[in-house]
């Protein structure tokens, strides 16, 4: 038992129907669920009836952070937002969106580990949290404004240090494909419209308090420095992408892109990223440049710097300055984002006049970021854009839309790869203006339903990367064979897990990876080289379980799962070993609640299992294996007809995957035929009460 450190100590509850604001102690009710998604799932389980729909007043939205948020534990900027998920098809189920930025830390400094928002306001409001001063404020003047203007208006009232999580017009208009954004570019997908349904424009939070570290400060300093010393670049890639004087290995696909001659070219004056010896803690920030990684070499000259979430030395949000866009498109010359946030605008187009990594593609990215991160539109990990291209180029749009509406879009501009097209399309999605915009905003599952397209069509298509229930794959068999494929069956949105891909894609040679895999999962056979897969074995199931548990652990502690677990390191003298007990080390020192690696993984299993229980209760079905834990057909088909397990193909074998799911269920003590966790599985992690409720509904095996 603790309460001495780590947690802020209180959970804030705000009822927008009654205006009642109250607090409750965190540790009493939520300690066994840590924070973040753990608190989110627990509140939904206890307080939201299974038949609730996302936009009902009875739905709740929980902004949860964990005991490591706001501390010096590296990469702790994540806020987990949990609610019923509007784009989950055919029935909305529980899921969580996660945003980086500075919101999590400010919430902790204000004295809270979570905010539970319930009810619905009569007219638009925003929530102001300044330490113990919490107020529901009129937001009628902000309603209809974009995220940026709303944030600035709120910052003018609260002060420049405030962190503001806001929705744009998309969320206000209940567009399911909408986001919540804080700190300029840090977005949590999928839940903007849930805030919109509550007429909650924004939450501004500013804190001036401290978070105590329970353990001795010198031990904490040692632990933090150990963690920092084992970090790689973004996605915990531990070798550089090009030969470096200090490096034994390099790997072209690595996100460790720093090198002599590669400069933050738009800094004044430009800054050399250099060789970045992993032993130099003052060079960590130069390893990663996700603009260059995702947009191409040309992005170096536009790079101003990396931009960090709270406590993160990696700075994967790259800040770029492209002066031409200001005159050409009337938007800010500065933009920042990472990964699919960077490529949001570009991904709508098939081609550009000067190629796929030319100037115009970068302009399209700038226009996309400028619009989407202000209107608050979600890309569903690129599914929105892949769907759009498919619908247009297959002639489906022409067929489905009224002629006048179809012709209201400048398709010649679109086909020419002119970013100006985004000014036509994106504001209409946010405004639900017309059928095309409205249908795109529903998310893939409901979109297909609306237009009478079989989901199977999408599931057959490798290029669409669609997985199930309205959402795409996220690091599946293209990264980690059966392990990745199985993991992608488990959630009610894209899986949002990087534990496995961070290891598989870390850039180390296969023999070193296999040596490390043996130490972590018990056998070198847990992993294969990408696209040189071998048949399923129990160690792949163990790796899948470990990956998912660590994802929930990270989302509950507030550690970034894009940077962990630290299963490998860039340090030759350690044999490239990482340390997968860092989470428990930091947790124990911060909170004073001593837990080892195994014990903390058991807490993670409790959280993961509660998510499973929620899914089962909300579905009200016994056949979870066949109704929920599914894979799309493209996983089992090779475009060139290569058989499974031959080098060069990522596709899987059906019988092998069936065995794989069996092994995965057995690892978790779930019933193999139904996919329902057994009573003992719940009991083992202290969820007997959850099992009892499911038993009453006939939802135990």
């Amino acid at each position: 038992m603790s309460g001495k450190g780590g947690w802020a100590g209180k959970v804030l509850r705000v009822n927008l129907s009654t205006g009642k604001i109250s607090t409750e102690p965190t540790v009493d009710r939520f300690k066994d669920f840590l924070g973040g998604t753990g608190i989110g799932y627990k509140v939904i389980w206890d307080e939201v009836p299974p038949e609730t729909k996302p936009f009902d007043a009875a739905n709740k939205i929980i902004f949860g952070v964990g005991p490591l948020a706001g501390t010096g534990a590296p990469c702790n900027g994540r806020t987990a937002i949990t609610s019923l998920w509007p784009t989950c098809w055919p029935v909305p189920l529980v899921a969580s969106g996660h945003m980086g930025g500075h919101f999590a830390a400010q919430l902790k400094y204000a004295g809270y580990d979570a905010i539970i928002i319930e009810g619905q306001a009569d007219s638009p409001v925003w929530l102001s949290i300044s330490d113990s001063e919490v107020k529901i404020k009129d937001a009628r003047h902000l309603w209809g404004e974009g995220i940026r203007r709303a944030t600035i208006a709120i910052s003018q009232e609260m002060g420049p240090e405030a962190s503001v999580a806001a929705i744009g017009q998309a969320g206000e208009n209940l567009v399911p494909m909408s986001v919540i954004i804080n700190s300029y570019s840090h977005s949590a997908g999928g839940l903007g419209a849930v805030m919109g349904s509550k007429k909650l424009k924004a939450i501004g939070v500013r804190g001036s308090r401290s978070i105590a570290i329970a353990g001795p400060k010198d031990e904490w300093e040692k632990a933090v420095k150990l963690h920092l010393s084992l970090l790689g670049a973004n996605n915990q890639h531990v070798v550089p992408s090009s030969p470096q004087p200090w490096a034994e290995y390099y790997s072209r696909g690595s996100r460790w892109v720093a090198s002599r001659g590669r400069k933050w070219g738009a800094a004044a004056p430009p800054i050399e990223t250099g060789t970045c010896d992993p032993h130099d803690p003052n060079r960590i920030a130069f390893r990663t440049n996700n603009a260059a990684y995702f947009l191409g070499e040309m992005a170096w000259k536009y790079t101003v710097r990396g931009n960090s979430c709270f406590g993160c030395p990696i700075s994967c949000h790259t800040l770029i300055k492209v002066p031409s866009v200001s005159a050409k498109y009337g938007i800010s010359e500065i933009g920042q984002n990472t990964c699919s946030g960077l490529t949001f605008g570009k991904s709508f187009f098939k081609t550009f006049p000067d190629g796929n990594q030319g100037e115009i593609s970068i302009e399209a990215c700038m226009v996309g970021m400028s619009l989407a991160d202000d209107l608050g539109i979600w890309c569903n990990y690129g599914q929105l854009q892949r769907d759009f291209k498919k619908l247009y180029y297959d002639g489906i749009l022409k067929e489905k839309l009224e002629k006048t509406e179809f012709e209201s879009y400048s398709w010649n501009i679109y086909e020419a790869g002119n970013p100006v097209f985004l000014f036509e399309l994106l504001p209409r999605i946010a405004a639900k203006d017309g059928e095309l915009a409205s249908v795109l905003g529903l998310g893939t599952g409901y979109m297909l339903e609306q237009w009478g397209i079989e989901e199977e069509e999408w599931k057959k298509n490798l290029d669409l990367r669609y997985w199930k229930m309205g959402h795409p794959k996220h690091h599946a068999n293209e990264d980690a064979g059966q392990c990745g494929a199985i993991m992608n069956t488990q959630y009610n949105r894209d899986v949002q897990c990087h534990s496995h891909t961070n290891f598989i894609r870390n850039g180390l040679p296969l023999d070193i990876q296999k040596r490390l895999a043996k130490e972590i999962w018990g056998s070198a056979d847990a992993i294969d080289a990408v696209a040189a897969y071998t048949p399923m074995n129990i160690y792949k199931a163990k790796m899948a379980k470990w990956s998912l548990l660590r994802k929930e652990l990270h989302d509950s502690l507030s550690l970034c799962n894009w940077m962990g677990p630290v299963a490998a390191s860039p340090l030759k003298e350690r044999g490239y070993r990482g340390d997968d007990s860092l989470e428990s080390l930091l947790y124990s020192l911060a909170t004073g609640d001593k837990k080892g690696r195994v014990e903390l993984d058991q807490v993670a299993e409790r959280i993961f299992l509660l998510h499973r229980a929620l899914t089962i209760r909300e579905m009200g079905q016994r056949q979870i294996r066949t109704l929920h834990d599914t894979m799309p057909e493209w996983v089992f088909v090779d475009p060139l007809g290569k058989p499974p397990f031959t080098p060069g193909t990522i596709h899987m074998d059906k019988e092998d995957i069936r065995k794989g799911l069996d092994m995965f269920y057995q690892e978790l003590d779930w019933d193999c035929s139904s996919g329902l966790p057994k009573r003992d599985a719940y009991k083992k992690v202290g969820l007997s009460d959850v099992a009892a409720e499911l038993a009453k509904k006939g939802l135990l095996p």
Partner: protein
Amino acid sequence: MKISGLAVIGFSAFGTYGTLQKKEPTLIIMEKAEGLVIGDPTLCIGCMRCELACTEFNDGKASPSLSRIKVSRNMNFGPKGVFAGQLRQGNWGNGLITQDLCLQCPHPVPCANACPNDAIVVRPPLYARVVDPEKCGGCRMCLRSCPWEMISFDEEANKATKCFLCNGKPKCVEACPAGALRYITWTDLMDRVPLRLVPTAVIPPEKSALCIACHKNIKEFQE
């Protein structure tokens, strides 16, 4: 320059200074610090690891509001804040994040002069201006005296605190993942770093009397 002749008085003396004699000698800091920390805004990535290292490794708690290096307040909109309009810096402006750092001011040291308890003292070997928590009464006059707003206040301890250079190995410098902070030999930046506010602290009368007496004497001496 004849000022060096006065420097020996520094720190302990004035006790025998005629009519100004008191039981406790009034503290006037004359020594210069050995070093100071400077920051380069073009390198800052806004991770706040400097503020965390400052408070976690020195105080055992994460507390940007207590940090003696101040970056959070400039991160979103820059030193001129959210009302700076087109001149905004930071993540919501031109991208530059300014690190605010203690200048370890030369004589007259504004925070030390404003302290009614003489709680801001210098300690060898670095001669950083530091708050002696034993003497600090928590009145916050020093917070209003620093034109760069570099004094922090620990609400839990009810004491002021400020940069003490971590015994010559500043934690913030060590923690910066972008090498944006450097610990350098002291140099006078008072005229080079823009002020954040106009000080409103009142200097205790016995100190201002000393200042007048002494500076008048210097003038007469020089004349």
